[in-house]
């Protein structure tokens, strides 16, 4: 599950970060969880259409999520956090793509066997061992991204391996699961989701922690993506593939960067997380040096400084500014806003002076760690979320002094100020304490949200394995060896084998990757096989020329294989036609049922050019009189342009060029 993919953005550059990091020295390791939507007509557990997205809704449901307790009588970390946020969750429903299953008002229908087949096929491509009996599990999510409060998910394959940089990338497991809702807005205590994407089948591929550098992470994402897409049975396009990147350094902990929408984002994110963990470990050592090493040693006291703040000159702490913000954003009490009157709370952290400005990620400090938690857990989302004594507005020092005095802060203490509804401020203060407690232990397990500049922000506490339980609504699915064999027999060639074959034929690597990734490779291979076409020419034709034409708006996707085959046969019998490919293919895209021979005839390409050399000579001669340009080269180019267009596809281009040259020589 990942949040909705953000709009494409400029790729962050590692080089923009001032400080390099010696990844081997700090023991950086990384692994992936790649989510890839499968191309099925229906969703995974109901018969709603998959991939039909809507922007409007015709029904709304309000729900709340309640954590279930573990057997020890305590809430698990994520569940507790998400419960403390006290979120109202609204789902926007559209009849076109949502039924009562997605609303969690109907139990699941039998699992979509086409999706299971596709998932098995994916597992086989990834070199996995297919499990004999697929059991659906429920994985709890309390953020509302799934109306049940859990995601139905099942392991299909384990123990896979991909060749990677001369070694291997291990695939720990592949599961088939239902996709989550798309987030519409998240403001304060109200989160709104759209259910169109909910329930679409996807596979999650989990790699081992085998990656050692940011560049390797990017390359691995692209590799897994190519392998998945090479079957042609997965969805492509925005949001169809998202990856979570797990990162840790030696002595740190696994942090999941969730929903990285593009492989190109990964290097900067991994680099930044590596630095973050290194810096948090240094902060831990500093806290220990000051005697702050245990949960009890972190002492936090709060003081209500609402009235003091009204006398000061920091607008965001003043009531009128608060009321304006509430009104402008149409924030409603009992919905977006939490309980209690506006409160400005000073949070004194004993002995923690200097820690708020402690660097973490590039361009970020420890105060940003607190901001993320306060925003998500306490639901305080008015920028800048919090203020603190180590980056206080320069023109408001007297107010800081007054607040520090009221909060009994001495020079050794850190001071954080939060504001908002009273109850949320109390939650925020408690969470600031908990984040400091976590800091005494180094790096907390977190899920973090990625941004295009390579930075991340807190999303939630990383859930563990202890939130999984069997789905009592679904029987297990047996996967027979016969089924596995049937699917194995129809597998496409492994991408790395195909890429090696193309490379041997002289196809550029980028072209080969494109063809494998977008499924064009199957067409190339079939044309080569059935029409005897040249591999390099055909790969270039589809991987570069047709791609370019499509990007210019020609709908080449509508052209059936038979037309392509006709075209390539025509290329063989009348080689000059190759020069007219663009005009022919454009016409094929408009009338995909029209035989290529008819198109060629309609374009007048089927008649041999008569006395064309004479025509060229005459044209070149007259060209000199049609322009004031005296430069012979430019006159020649002008003349070429005039004669080439009518002859394209009928006479080989090289011959036309030669004829033009000859005529020009005669003129001179």
């Amino acid at each position, binding site marked *: 599950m990942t949040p909705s993919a953000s709009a494409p953005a400029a790729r962050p550059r590692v080089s923009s970060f001032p400080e390099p990091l010696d990844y081997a020295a700090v023991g950086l390791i990384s692994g992936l969880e790649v989510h890839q939507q499968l191309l099925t007509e229906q969703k995974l557990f109901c018969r709603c259409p998959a991939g039909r997205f809507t922007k409007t809704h015709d029904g709304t449901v309000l*729900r709340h999520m309640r954590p279930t307790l573990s057997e020890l009588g305590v809430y698990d970390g994520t569940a507790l956090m998400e419960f403390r946020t006290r979120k109202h969750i609204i789902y926007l429903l559209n009849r076109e793509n949502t039924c*009562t299953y997605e609303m969690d008002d109907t139990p699941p229908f039998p699992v979509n066997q086409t999706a299971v087949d596709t998932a098995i096929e994916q597992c086989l491509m990834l070199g996995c061992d297919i499990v004999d009996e697929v059991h659906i599990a429920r994985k709890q999510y309390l953020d509302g991204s799934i109306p049940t409060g859990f995601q139905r998910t099942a392991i299909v394959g384990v123990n896979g391996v991909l060749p990677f940089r001369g070694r291997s990338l291990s695939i720990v497991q592949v*599961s088939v699961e239902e996709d989550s809702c798309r987030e519409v807005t998240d403001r304060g205590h109200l989160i709104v989701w759209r259910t169109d994407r909910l329930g679409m089948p996807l596979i999650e591929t989990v790699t081992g922690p085998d990656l050692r550098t940011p560049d390797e992470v990017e390359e691995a994402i692209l590799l897994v993506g190519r392998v998945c897409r090479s079957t042609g049975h997965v969805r492509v396009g925005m949001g169809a593939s998202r990856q979570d990147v797990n990162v840790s350094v030696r002595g740190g902990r696994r942090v999941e960067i969730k929903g990285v929408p593009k492989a190109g984002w990964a290097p900067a994110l991994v680099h930044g997380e590596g630095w973050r963990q290194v810096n948090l470990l240094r902060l831990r050592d500093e806290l220990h040096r000051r005697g702050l090493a245990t949960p009890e040693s972190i002492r936090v006291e709060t003081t209500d400084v609402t009235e003091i703040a009204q006398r000061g000159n920091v607008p965001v702490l003043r009531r009128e500014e608060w009321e304006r913000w509430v009104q402008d954003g149409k924030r409603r009490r009992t919905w977006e806003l939490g309980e209690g009157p506006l409160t400005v709370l000073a949070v004194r952290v004993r002995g923690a002076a200097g820690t708020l400005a402690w660097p973490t990620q590039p361009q970020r400090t420890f105060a940003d760690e607190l901001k993320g938690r306060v925003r998500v857990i306490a639901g305080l989302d008015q920028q800048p979320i919090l203020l603190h004594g180590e980056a206080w507005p320069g023109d408001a020092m007297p107010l800081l002094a007054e607040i520090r005095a009221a909060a009994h802060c001495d020079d050794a203490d850190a001071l954080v100020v939060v504001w908002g509804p009273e109850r949320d401020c109390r939650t925020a203060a408690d969470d600031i304490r908990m984040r400091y407690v976590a800091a005494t232990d180094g790096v907390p397990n977190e899920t973090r949200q990625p941004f295009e500049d390579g930075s991340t922000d807190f999303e939630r506490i990383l859930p563990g394995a202890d939130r999984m339980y069997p789905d009592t609504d679904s029987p297990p699915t047996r996967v027979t060896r016969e089924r596995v064999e049937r699917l194995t027999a129809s597998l496409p060639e492994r991408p790395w084998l195909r890429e090696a074959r193309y490379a041997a034929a002289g196809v550029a690597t980028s072209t080969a990757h494109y063809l494998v990734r977008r499924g064009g490779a199957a067409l190339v291979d079939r044309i080569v096989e059935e029409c005897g076409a040249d591999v390099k020419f055909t790969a270039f034709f589809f991987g570069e020329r047709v791609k370019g034409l499509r990007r210019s708006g020609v709908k080449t996707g509508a052209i059936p294989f038979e037309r392509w085959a006709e075209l390539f046969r025509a290329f063989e019998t009348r080689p000059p036609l190759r020069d007219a490919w663009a005009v022919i293919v454009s016409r094929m895209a408009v009338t995909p049922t029209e035989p290529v021979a008819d198109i060629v005839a309609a374009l007048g390409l089927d008649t041999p050019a008569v006395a064309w050399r004479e025509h060229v000579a005459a044209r070149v001669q007259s060209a000199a009189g049609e322009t004031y340009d005296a430069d012979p080269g430019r006159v020649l180019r002008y003349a070429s342009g005039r004669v080439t267009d009518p002859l394209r596809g009928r006479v080989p281009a090289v011959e036309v060029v030669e004829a033009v040259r000859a005529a020009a020589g005669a003129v001179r």
Partner: protein
Amino acid sequence: MSDSKPQTPVPATPAVETKDPLRGYRGRARATLERFGARVWGDVKATNDAGSVFEGVILPRSETFDDEHIVLKLKTGYNVGIHYERLRAIEEVGYREAVYKIPEQAFPSRPHLPSVTLLGTGGTIASRLDYRTGAVIPAFTPGELYGAVPELADVANLTTKKLFGVFSENMAREQYVVLAQSIKDEIEAGAAGIVIGHGTDTMSHTAAILSFMVQDSPVPIVVVGSQRSSDRPSSDAALNLIHAVRAAGTGDIAEVQICMFGPTSDRYALLHRGTRCRKMHSSYRSTFRTVGDVPMAMVGDEITYLHNDYRRRDPSRRIRLDTSYDDRTTILYYYPGMKPDLVDALVEKGYRGIVIAGTGLGHVNKPLYPALKRAHAAGVHIVMCVQTLWGFAQMYVYDTGRDLLDLGVVPLDNMLPETALMKLSWVLGSTDDHDEVLRRMRDVVNHEMLEREPHNGYLILQGGLPETDEFTSSHWK
């Protein structure tokens, strides 16, 4: 309360626990486990013929599943089944039996709050997960409930009694009698209200029979359940329970009532009269609807009464009990072409009361007449309800109806068929005299027949119409 019936081997309660170390496994899978010396709850490393190693706990297997797979809960929390023929080795590295005991927290007692007794009939009102095994553990005692639904402590002081542990379709005479008696006992012991945790499938049957068996209650009797299982974070169970305890502890309606979601959204509950309510959707949260009338109240943070035609709370009133019950009764759901031998068979098998759910205003076909006449002559009491659920049996309108009246079939106006069945069983428990049975069937105890149907007592919005869609898109579903 939840009606979700586990298909996978969820070891539900200690009651069904056995000492079999291979429980649920049979045939080939069992033999394979025995061969490797493995056992359920064993923490193992299992290796298959492809060399894949699965690390996890062996789970019990549902006996309805095949005998070819061994189920493991992996360290990642996922379950997988391994085919017995592909297993090459099982190495036990530990043993982790599911923990069924839930540690209790004392339910705080607050003197200013009313005392409410929760009577359990089965299912789970709240539950916890044993994450290590995936088992769903029901929570029922006040301490357990407090841990799961702490808001209850702000509503009432709670006492709980588990009467039985049955799915609601297994509720029958024996349970109804015990339940009615327990209600009386608890009320006489001073309960300010009674909540009954119940599966939703036959909840309206129970609410109906209790409406007849328990009369003149001084306090509310509230039946509650959940439509979506309580182990899911989005369950309606907790909110239903809070609403029910509020209705029982502080509500003013001293009748048997059903308390379930109004809309499917987490908004408010409706209080439905026990004799006029029906489950209308197999899984929707807002499944219960009052039929032929409007509900009695909405319950949120406050209780909003929708009309004042109900019995008020009155602690001085003395509760009366009549637990008579004869279960030799049935509902005959009429369909075109029904053969008379069905009626004869019922008579022959000793049934004493038949509720016909007839078509339209209360009709059956002519070939059935002789059989009905024979049944009537044999002393079987036959009453007529309508399968349209809404509207009245009005048998004077057509000849068919008048003919049936002549055969001794008695119309029950707009009594719901299930309510009629419960009432007929209750009446037949104390008399077999035909006139007396008919008199009592038509003698209204608590709104089971209405003199007048308000026009907003029948509202089934037809989706797809512009005005309906405008309404539904602008209101919480």
